[in-house]
């Protein structure tokens, strides 16, 4: 069953498609599962200044599952970090928006990611720096479910708990599909909340496409421990053929006709 989306979620997804226009490739499924997570963060939770991307007291968002970057680029465009036309240069020879996000190239990108398992450790360093210097910014790290196969994620989880980093939230895009197939088949993560709890974290779960629930949980008061929010999502959400379909994890060779159909499916009647 297709995930039901409101107009804003469809509009953001159309910006994701903008990136595909030129490149004709991208981790579409992985981007579409996290649109609402990023939307909730940027609309209702994060503290930031698009005209001053390195503002010292901004909240930090690290997209550790860097292959989902088309969704991040869409939100950064939406918030005015850079112009929508930049999406036309996605993966281009002289473009600034790569197939994985780079901190030094893209305003609003806090860490260069793409190789999985790096973002949470970087986030621990940032959150620890805030704690040591008594700054009140928060750090959010979005990780993929398949990414949690990486041992470094769990090294970082131990460390965050040790330091009591209650200013750190890890958000897991639990779409239950990794590149080869289902997460249960490739390397099962369950019992997932219990794993985080046993590592010294508070663990919550929610529907990762329910913007209201996401916003409430993410903006809610922090406790004493770092927090994991396990977001149940649908890979490829919003495009019927892509949903739950590992073949759309990294989609390439998209034809003009396919692209047009995707825009129309996402509500662009003028595409």
């Amino acid at each position, binding site marked *: 069953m297709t995930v039901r989306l409101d107009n804003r979620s469809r509009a953001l997804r159309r910006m994701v498609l903008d990136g595909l226009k030129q490149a004709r490739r991208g981790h579409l499924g992985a981007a579409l599962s996290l649109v609402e997570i990023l939307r909730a963060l940027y609309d209702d939770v994060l503290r930031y200044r698009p005209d001053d991307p390195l503002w010292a007291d901004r909240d930090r968002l690290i997209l550790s599952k860097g292959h989902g970057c088309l969704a991040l680029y869409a939100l950064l465009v939406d918030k005015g970090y850079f112009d929508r036309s930049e999406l036309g240069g996605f993966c281009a020879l002289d473009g600034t928006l790569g197939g994985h996000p*780079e*901190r*030094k190239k893209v305003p609003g990108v*806090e*860490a*260069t990611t*793409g*190789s999985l*398992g*790096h973002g*949470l*450790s*970087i*986030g*621990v*360093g*940032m*959150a*620890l*720096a*805030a704690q*040591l*210097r008594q700054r009140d910014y928060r750090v959010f790290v979005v990780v993929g479910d398949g990414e949690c196969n990486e*041992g*470094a994620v769990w*090294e*970082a989880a*131990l*460390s965050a708990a*040790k330091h009591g980093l209650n200013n750190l939230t890890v958000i897991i895009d639990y779409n239950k599909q990794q590149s080869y197939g289902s997460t249960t088949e490739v390397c099962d993560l369950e019992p997932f909340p219990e794993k985080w709890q046993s590592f010294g974290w508070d663990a919550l779960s929610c529907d990762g496409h329910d913007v209201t629930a996401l916003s409430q949980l993410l903006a809610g008061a922090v406790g004493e421990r770092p927090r994991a929010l396990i977001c149940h999502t649908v890979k490829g959400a919003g495009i019927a053929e892509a949903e739950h379909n590992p073949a759309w994890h990294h989609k390439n060779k998209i034809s003009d006709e396919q692209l047009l159909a995707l825009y129309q499916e996402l509500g662009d009647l003028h595409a």
Partner: protein
Amino acid sequence: MRKTCLDLVYQLAQADERVIFVGSDLGVGTLDELKAEFPERFLMEGVSEAHVVGMAAGLAMSGYVPYVNTIASFITRRCLEQLILDVCLEQLPVRLIGNGAGLVYAPLGPTHQATDDLAHLRAMPEMTILAPADAEEMRQLMPQTLDHAGPIYIRLAKGYDPIVTSEATERAVLGRGRWLNASSGEALAITTGVTAGMALDAAKILSDKGIKLSVLHLPTVKPLDEEMILAAARGAQAVVTIEEHSVIGGLGSAVAELLLEAGVTPRFRRLGLPDAFADGYGSQRALLAKLGLSAASVADAVQKLFAHRRMKVV
């Protein structure tokens, strides 16, 4: 050298509040003074090098200058990708202090021997590599690490290594080579780390045989002091490089690439560890000698280069 290095981290921490020390699971008592005086800037994070380096990157992105310390083989191999992507790509001021590089941990076997670190790190854009010869050189170089842009790997020797740089004519400068004896020899040894002492001993052996061996020491392996190396090699008839590292990818490779591309072609030989895992344990010095690295073997190699040259002339 190790003690001097850590003492200087403490001094830097006293002088600059950006300095933060990050260990993995070091020996009991490590930097107790720093821990007592600045507990918030002393972190001991556990046996998790990949995480430790990533975390250090996050600290550096937030304004700190982290000095990360663990055994050289672990701080280079176990977190190779974090070094490349989290630290070098981001051009962050993370300092990586590798204990016991080369064959310092000879008795502990190949798991603890860092004999490929220079090769790995040389190939990382933005990385600076320091391999001082002794505590005195370390003392001169460490203050220069504080404000250096980008990451630095500091390759440590055993500790209490003999002081061999006292005759150097200039102070150690990051990125520059230094002459450790007369610069006018017909043979040239280019060294890094503790092989400087080995070369100076070889020079004494060769002096008795009528060959003057000049020792150009490179406490910085990357970036290479190309100008100084080329000038020195142009004036020499035979050149050897000496390193406590595989002959693949380290100092010798770097110098060979430089010389050949510049058209400077003296008789040349790389002296280092063979392309093989060390078979045997023993002391560092004994294992080095077994693998062909000693003052005597350096002197022998230089002599052979000369013999070859003379035969060719005849």
